């Protein structure tokens, strides 16, 4: 069940110049609704004339024990800048949980799972990795960024699987884009999950489709509502225009029109 909740900020840490990690819990001690990997929230950034609409942000991590929701924010405009300015104790209004989830693999044949993230697209992969591991799968992460400074939460990712990295400037991991990483040649993955800039996801989808690897991608289309009523967030799929906020954000690449 979707809810509109006022959550309280327990921590807001600047990870680098452009990224903040916000941790939230319920204001009244009640349990947060359950959230699954791939789902997102819609945040109200009040008090700004330039942020009339809510902002969609992925569930970066959901700590059931601590009743805590993590959001990884990349500062790109007024809304995300305001989010980064929230202080401990401040109240944030959210709609949650929204969207569908990544699908769990069927245990038998899929155990070489690769999670490929670029930029802030790594956000939903942390909670996905955690969940996969909890369900007994073994996971590898392939994370790409412009440079070392922009590779975030590596310690966290390391808790749930092997972490491979690429940086565009070669300051960490292999130099280049995620899709050029040597692991893609050396290991035969059975399923790939990806989130990041569209050109990156399209490359990943091509790679997967060429090798007939099952692949799911999480999209970030522009959204006005986040829960299926405005019909603004559509992706043109084989079934026509469908809403990314309700039928997605996670899609099997077979439904998308990215390849050919």
């Amino acid at each position: 069940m979707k809810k509109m909740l006022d959550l309280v900020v327990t921590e807001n840490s600047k990870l680098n110049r452009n990224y903040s990690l916000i941790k939230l819990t319920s204001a009244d001690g009640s349990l947060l609704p359950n959230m699954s990997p791939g789902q997102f929230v819609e945040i109200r950034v009040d008090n700004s004339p330039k942020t009339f609409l809510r902002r969609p942000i992925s569930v970066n991590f959901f700590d059931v024990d601590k009743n805590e929701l993590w959001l990884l924010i990349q500062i790109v405009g007024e809304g995300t800048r305001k989010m980064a300015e929230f202080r401990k104790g401040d109240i944030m209004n959210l709609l949650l949980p929204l969207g569908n989830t990544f699908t769990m693999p069927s245990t038998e044949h899929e155990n070489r799972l690769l999670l490929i993230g670029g930029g802030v697209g790594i956000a939903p992969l942390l909670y996905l990795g955690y969940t996969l591991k909890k369900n007994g799968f073994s996971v590898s992460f392939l994370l790409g960024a412009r440079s070392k400074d922009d590779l975030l939460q590596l310690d966290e990712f390391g808790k749930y699987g092997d972490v491979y990295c690429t940086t565009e400037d070669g300051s960490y991991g292999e130099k280049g884009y995620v899709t050029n990483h040597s692991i893609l040649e050396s290991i035969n993955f059975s399923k790939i999950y990806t989130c990041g800039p569209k050109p990156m996801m399209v490359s990943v989808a091509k790679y997967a489709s060429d090798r007939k690897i099952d692949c799911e991608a999480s999209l970030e289309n522009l959204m006005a509502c986040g829960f299926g009523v405005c019909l603004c967030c559509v992706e043109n799929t084989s079934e026509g225009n469908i809403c990314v906020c309700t039928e997605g954000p996670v899609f099997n690449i077979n439904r998308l029109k990215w390849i050919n």
Partner: protein
Amino acid sequence: MDKLSINIGGLRLKNPVMTASGTFGYGKEFADFVDLSRIGGIFVKGTTIRNRDGNAYPRMAETPMGMLNAVGLQNKGVDYFISNIYPSIKDYNTNIIVNVSGSTIEDYVECAAKLMGLEKIPAIELNISCPNVKEGGMAFGTSACSASEVVKAVRQVWNKTLIVKLSPNVTDITEIARAVEAEGADAVSLINTLLGMAIDINKRKPVLSTVTGGLSGPCVKPVALRMVWQTYNAVKIPIIGMGGISCWQDAIEFILAGASAIQIGTYNFIDPTISVKVVDGIESYLEKNNIKSISELIGSLII
């Protein structure tokens, strides 16, 4: 709640707060957030005779205290509505009103005729004002002559409450309002979106795939309120006011200007519970000001 009830050309509302077409889905999308039975009525998504896939993405742009949309009436068509959606929403304890759009007069008529069979649909809203589809919609709503024709034709096949939704993109909205009143519309609703545009200066391209789109949200409220007031002074049929309503105070402004009821559109995205908050706010205002019935307030602006 009786002091809030009102009759709009035969349509009985438990309160004057309704939700606008295209911003409230089919109601069920909001069931997690609000008790739908507390709302006066739900105007469902624009429905056309045939399935429409809508316009290409991108379909929205944020603007100062508002947004542009270019959805283009994406919907699965009236037959799908009748067989797949209607059964699941018909028993909501509120009024379900279908917003009917079309490209030709025949489209409107055929669509209305099909909906006539649905017992739990007490009213339709003729959308002659959608700015987002090339072939029609707004073209009907910007000339008194073609507006009359559509209304006249639909009136032949629809004998429940007929609401006509007017376009604000006109020199004189009262002219269109009078024309549709003359053809037997039971009520007018206004305003639909204002035609607007946004440009991405880095790509040097329009933000919307359709170049222009419909502007809505608090930014349009002053224009909407003015049009409701002008129309109130020009026609005798009831007016359903909308455009930028974001709080109960806004709703009261529309009612004072002459609206018998109001619709909330874009603000449902910002606060999905806004509709019931507006109901509560109107009720307290009546109490605080010792007003026995909402009907005393309608058009009671002191000039």
